[in-house]
Structures are given as structure tokens and as C-alpha cells.
């Protein structure tokens, strides 16, 4: 049943000719004097799947965190799902409901069971009846192929399982957009595969996704677009094939040579 829940939900999110899900317009951000985001312009259409890559420290995480306002940008506009991000707390609440985030380090709540992790936000934020929330959560856990872990605590799971719980937790809020910040880099190769499989499945169902990752295989397989960042700027952006096979800038070429060598 998990499949059906998700497809039903995702389908509703993907409308033809919908307004862009995310708009970044001339976004600038500083940490103190350090200029970490420079005039970022990016549009993500509903249902689009964008992979962000770039060297360490290039501002990928910062950008993605600005989108659900874990960081505040200082110049420019960010519009998510038609709502502009301002200091207004209500708009913030509205946006966070629509945007799910999966962290590199999982950030599961260790004192709650897997099921409680998944139902917490639906119950308290979405005011969903507990039973319904649990049913839905079990659906997503099923989808993530970890239904039997529902009663365990995060500390009892392997890394790959934890990351899949984190994805399920985000999905339980039925977000329109999912943000992934290097969701696999804390995992060992076997677990990476589990998680990537899960993400591919989500992508195939049409979820709007922005994903920071160095997994080129994943990018090639599912990305509609790859964005390459360096030093706070978007240097190149385009179809995966174009980016990987035919990089335009020296920076990207150098970067690709490095990461391809690494593995």
C-alpha cells in the first residue's frame, strides 16, 4: 500500500505548467565577511530533479539550507512553492511544511522510536490523528523497505536503515519538495546503494527534488539537471550528459577529473 500512498500524493504535486517550485533570484549570503553565496539564480520546476555538485566549501549546503531557511539569505529573493521567504514566521511555517529535508548525518531523534520519529511532525504540525499518521508512516516505512524496524530506536539501526528512516520521516509530512544534503556520504558502499535506490524510486515517482551529491551514477540516472557550484557561484548547469561529457569551464573539468579519479 505504501506505493499507492506515495504515488497518489506525488501525482497531486506534479501539475503541468505549474509555477516553478523553487525560485532563487540574485541570492547573496555572507558568513561574517565570508561571501558564501554569490548572485545565485536558480529555478526548479515542479517535478524537476536537480543535482547540485561542486567542491567542498563551495556553498552547496548553504544554498540548500537557505531554501528552507535553516540559514537566512541576506540579499535577493527566494520563493518556494509560491511563498516568498521573509522574516515572517507564518510564511516560514508554511514553507517548512512543504519542504522536506534529509541531512547527511540523518539527525534522527534518538529518544523516539522509528515510528514516533515519523509521526511526530504529522501529529503536531499537521494535526493529523495519530492512527492515520501511524498508518501513513508505516506505509512509507514499507516503501523504504524497513517496515519491520518501526518499533526500534534509531540507535539500533544500521546507517543505511537510518537514512531511509530519515527519508520516510520527511515524506510523512507529504512535502511537495524534497531537499537532500549529501544523503549518502556518511554511509559505507553497501548502504549507499540502498539509499540511492530509494532516491531513484522517489525520483521516478515525480517528486520535486534538489539533491547535493557526488554520486555521479545517481546524477546520470535521475537528474533532469545538474548544477555545478564553485566558490559560492553557479558555474555551470545543464543536462547530466552535457555536464559530465562536455564540461565547458576549466573548473568543472578539474572537478570532474578529481571525483572520477577518487572512486
Amino acid at each position, binding site marked *: 500500500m505504501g506505493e499507492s500512498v506515495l504515488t497518489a500524493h506525488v501525482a497531486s504535486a506534479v501539475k503541468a505548467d505549474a509555477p516553478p517550485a523553487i525560485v532563487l533570484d540574485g541570492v547573496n549570503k555572507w558568513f561574517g565577511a565570508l*561571501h558564501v553565496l554569490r548572485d545565485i539564480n536558480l529555478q526548479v520546476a515542479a517535478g524537476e530533479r536537480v543535482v547540485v555538485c561542486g*567542491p567542498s566549501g563551495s556553498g552547496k549546503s548553504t544554498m540548500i539550507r537557505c531554501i528552507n531557511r535553516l540559514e537566512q539569505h541576506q540579499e535577493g529573493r527566494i520563493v518556494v512553492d509560491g511563498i516568498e521567504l521573509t522574516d515572517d514566521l507564518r510564511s516560514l511555517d508554511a514553507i517548512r511544511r512543504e519542504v522536506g529535508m534529509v541531512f547527511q548525518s540523518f539527525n534522527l531523534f534518538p529518544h523516539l522510536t522509528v515510528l514516533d520519529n515519523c509521526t511526530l511532525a504529522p501529529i503536531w504540525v499537521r494535526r493529523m490523528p495519530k492512527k492515520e499518521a501511524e498508518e501513513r508512516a508505516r506505509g512509507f516505512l514499507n516503501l523504504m523497505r524497513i517496515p519491520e524496524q518501526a518499533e526500534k530506536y534509531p540507535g539500533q539501526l544500521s546507517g543505511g536503515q537510518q537514512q531511509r528512516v530519515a527519508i520516510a520521516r520527511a515524506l510523512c509530512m507529504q512535502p511537495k519538495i524534497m531537499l537532500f544534503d549529501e544523503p549518502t556520504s556518511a554511509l559505507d558502499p553497501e548502504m549507499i546503494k540502498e539509499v540511492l535506490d530509494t532516491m531513484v524510486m522517489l525520483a521516478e515517482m515525480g517528486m520535486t527534488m534538489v539533491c547535493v551529491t557526488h554520486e555521479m551514477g545517481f546524477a546520470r540516472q535521475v537528474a533532469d539537471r545538474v548544477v555545478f557550484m564553485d566558490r559560492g557561484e553557479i558555474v555551470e548547469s545543464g543536462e547530466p550528459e552535457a555536464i559530465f561529457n562536455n564540461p565547458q569551464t576549466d573548473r568543472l573539468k578539474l572537478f570532474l577529473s578529481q571525483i572520477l579519479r577518487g572512486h
Partner: protein
Amino acid sequence: MSEITLNTAVSGVPEAPSRTAPVRTTGAVAWARQNLFGSWWSTAVTLALAYLIVRWTIGFVEWAFLNAIWEVPVVNGQAQTQACREIKGIGACWAVITEKHRFILFGTYPFEEHWRPALVCLLFVGLYVVSAMRRFWNWTLVPIWAVTLTLIGVLMWGGVFGLSYVPQERWGGLPITLILSTFGLAFAFPLAILVALGRRSKLPAIKMLCVLYVELIRGVPLISLLFMASVMFPLFLPEGMNIDKLLRAQVAITLFAGAYLAEVVRGGLQALSRGQYEAADALGLSYWQKTGLIILPQALRMVIPPLVNTFIGFFKDTSLVLIIGIFDLLTAGKTAIVEPAWQGFGIEVYITVGVIYLVFCFAMSRYSQDLERDLNRHRRR
């Protein structure tokens, strides 16, 4: 480090010029906006606190400085404190300090010989400073301590080198506080390490002894231990054998501090991963080598903050020896105002004594924070 990656990530490519951040995100105004007036609630708190601080400061300055009396005439050895009594509540009577400061600092130590305890205090401070410098953290510290402590003993007791002999009963004030806390901690610390190791030992009898010691001592107030040391201890010893009162208090404080420190050290030992023990074992280090070279250096570093907390606690707790009639700093302060002429000027004396404690404890706490940063440098990249 972030800077470096930012610059070297893709080397060979010139960096794009970075714009400076807009003004409203930097500078004093931005700082105040962010830290003092971040929201209406923050603004309210700031204003209320600022008002209270200003009012109290003005009140205190008036009492302590503007309206204060610094000296009163002394007629026939009797201080004429009428003037002080007139302004009670309006201004401070620091005359009590002017008159009694030497007693407060040195107790009943012979007046002409006060330079000796004064020197002892300086020696202690010097000892602390030297011990605090990481440059001296090696074997040289042992002779330094040995020599200084001997010197302190010679100065306090005298009886050699033409110094007159001063029995222990006449010691008092700050030197007593420093002696009790320094020796107390110096002995309690090794004891604590042994007990902490013992408590983690695999040998059940030793473990049980350590647990008993820690739990029994920690469960009772220091007052009752001191009490026991003073009232009961003579009964424990064979007839005729007697131990100096100060020494008894010292032993009680040491035992008490030992139990507390042992728990702190144990916390550090527990926090150490098993891998460290195994790596040391695998290299063939013996138990004591492993403990001394690998385990303790790491465990102790980890517990510097609670360790210093405990140190500060004991520095202050030495003031409890007043229960058994030893004139430490605080007791000397209290005794100074027994004299009828000075009765009722406790606040001034307490403030003075409090400031002395504050200076020592604050120095300790600051130093520990620096030390913690320094010693844990290896943890950061």
C-alpha cells in the same frame, strides 16, 4: 580551514572578486541589533536589565566609596567608631579593614613577623603561577614544589636560620586557607586517581573498598567530617599520641576532596574509548605504563572543567574549619569583629574576604578555560 578549501578546491583558477557584506550585517549597530534588540522581547529585557544594573551600580558606588569612612582615630588602643556607627547603612566603614586587615590576613601570627606569612602567600601565588605555565610541566616541577613547600614550612614555623619559632596554633588567615587547599588538593588528587582506577578494577574486593569510600564520604557533609577529625580523632589514636589539629583538618579535607575528585576522574576514565586500552595492550605496554602514558593523560584532559569546579569548591570549603577553631581567612575575618568597638561591621569584612576568595577562584576558573582550550587543541584540525 574552510577558507583553504574554498581557495584550493579547484586550483589554478583565479578567484572571483568577493563583494563585501552589506553594512547592516556587520559593525556595532548590527551587533547591537542582533544581540541586544533582536526582538521586542529581547529589547524589553535589555532595557529592564540595563536600568537595574545602572541603579545598583550607583547605589553601590555611593555606599562603598562616596560615603565611606576609611579611618577612625584610635585612643588608648580603643578604636573610636562612633563616626562609623553614625553612617551605618549609608556608607561603608572601611576603617575596620584599615585597622584589622593584618589580623584578617594573618590571624594571630606574631605581629612583627607578619612578613613571613606574607612571603608565604607570595610563594604560594608564585607556585601556582609556575605550575600553571605549561613550560614547567615536567620533572622540574617536582623540585620546585619540594623546595617551595619546604621554604613555606621554614617560614611559617621558623626555629632555624635565626627565625623565631612560631607554633602552628598561631598561624591563621590567608596562609591557612592556602595551605589547607593546596596540600589538600595536592594529596587528594593522587588519592582520587588511585580510587578511580580502583573503582574500575576487575578485582571485586578493591572495587568494593573504593565504592564504599567514595559513597560514604560523599554522603556526609564536610562539616561532620571535620567535626569527627576534631572531636573524635583523638579517641582513635593510642593514648598520648596526638596529631596536630591542622593536620587533622587537612586529612579530613583531603579525604573529602579525594572522594569527589575520584568521581570526576572516573567520569574521564569512562569516557575513554575501549580502543585506546586495546591499542595500548596490543603494543605491549604494562598496566602502569598504559595508565600513565595513555589513559590518564587523556582522561584528565577531558575532565578539566569539573575538576576545576571541584578545586574551586574545596578552596572555599576550607572556610568550614572554623567549626573546629582554626582561624582560616573567613574565621579570622569573623573574629576580627568580635571586639566590641567593631561589632556590627560584618558586611565590610565579609566583602573584603569575599573579594579575596573571588580573586583566587576567578583566576582558577579563567585559567582552566584557557587550559582546556589549549590542551584540547589536538582535537581540532
